[in-house]
């Protein structure tokens, strides 16, 4: 089957656009609704691969280092990110604990891993891995469900709530997680559907 990669439709309003293949370095918006059809950054693939790799390494630090330490007089408690999740894990709260685990760790890491799987062969100059299109499609659809940045705001709110009763120290995992959120935000500026899909399908043979 053949398709024309220069003819794309806006996902929001269905208007057809012709995106010239020579103009990969030109950004383009939908003429009707203003949706960014292509970001015009051919370097996006390399950036996304590099940032996805970085975020997986950072998440490794997050998992095996203390996240927050609380000191209240003679009492002290330390919590890793995993502890934060397991705090919920009693009785009927177990499903909630598991979904929090997914939102803040599993899905963000899965997204980075899927992007790496789908796009790194393009950088390496080898053929696509089997199932690469499904991996890329999945990575895009995971976007709203990966909530690392929202968790970080939650941490800030919790710190203020605790400020009156105890002293809180940030551990290595806290800073790694903050970095993870920044890396992810930077990566999202390169997540252009048209650029990534064109690059992926150009190599499929």
């Amino acid at each position: 089957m053949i398709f024309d990669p220069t003819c794309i439709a806006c996902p929001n309003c269905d208007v057809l656009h012709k995106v010239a293949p020579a103009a990969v370095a030109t950004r383009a918006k939908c003429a009707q609704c203003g949706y960014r059809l292509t970001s015009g950054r051919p370097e996006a693939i390399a950036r996304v691969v590099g940032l996805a790799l970085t975020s997986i390494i950072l998440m490794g630090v997050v998992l095996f280092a203390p996240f927050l330490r609380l000191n209240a007089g003679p009492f002290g408690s330390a919590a890793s990110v995993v502890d934060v999740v397991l705090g919920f894990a009693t009785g009927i709260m177990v499903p909630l604990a598991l979904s929090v685990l997914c939102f803040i760790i599993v899905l963000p890491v899965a997204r980075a891993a899927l992007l790496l799987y789908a796009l790194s062969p393009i950088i390496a100059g080898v053929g696509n891995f089997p199932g690469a299109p499904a991996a890329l499609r999945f990575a895009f659809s995971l976007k709203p469900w990966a909530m690392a940045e929202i968790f970080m705001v939650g941490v800030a709110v919790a710190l203020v709530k605790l400020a009156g009763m105890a002293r809180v120290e940030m551990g290595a995992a806290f800073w790694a997680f903050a970095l993870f959120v920044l890396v992810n935000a930077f990566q999202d500026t390169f997540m252009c559907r048209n650029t990534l899909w064109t690059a992926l399908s150009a190599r499929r043979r």
Partner: protein
Amino acid sequence: MDRSVSSPSLTTARRAGLVACRSCGIVSPFGTRACLRCGSRLESRDEASLQRVWAWLLAGLIVYIPANTYPMLRTTQLFQTSESTIVGGVVELVHHHAYAIAAIVFIASVVIPVGKFLVIGYLAVLLRRPHGQDPHKLHTLHTAVEFIGRWSMIDVFVVAILTALVQFDVVASVKPGLAAACFALSVVFTMLSAQAFDPRLIWDRIKEESPR
């Protein structure tokens, strides 16, 4: 001038006898089941879209009620147990003069969810028939709801962190209440509701009314 894009007549894929992929953007002949490039399921217009929007919205609305009436946090300090609901937690923060944080929690847990119910409901009612509204405005509303909706999750994460950190036996301990689970479900359901929405309906139904 944007020269890389030329679409002088603004034809939709549907009118050109094509079906567009909402995942990767390319078009396939009408009737194609799966996208030729990325393999995602193709549908020129998601006819059941509004039904799924209503179903998820209703589910989200139903669990939002216990999310507000049941306690979110159960705090035990020196044998005294106190419970606080979502709104109660905000009031407590105001008493402690943490106005900025109170505002964040109030917006994330009350303003955004309620606004989301209203906006999705409004769009779903409006788009059953051709509408005379400015499609750009409706489009902005939908984009905003999809973008902001997930931020409601803040309060659930706050409860998780407090539960993990404040564990000093009888002196002070925090346990999550049933509302935390209900609220998380409500956020997930309304996110699914916003995602079920086919934004192409916004642009279709306006054209039916103004033949130009």
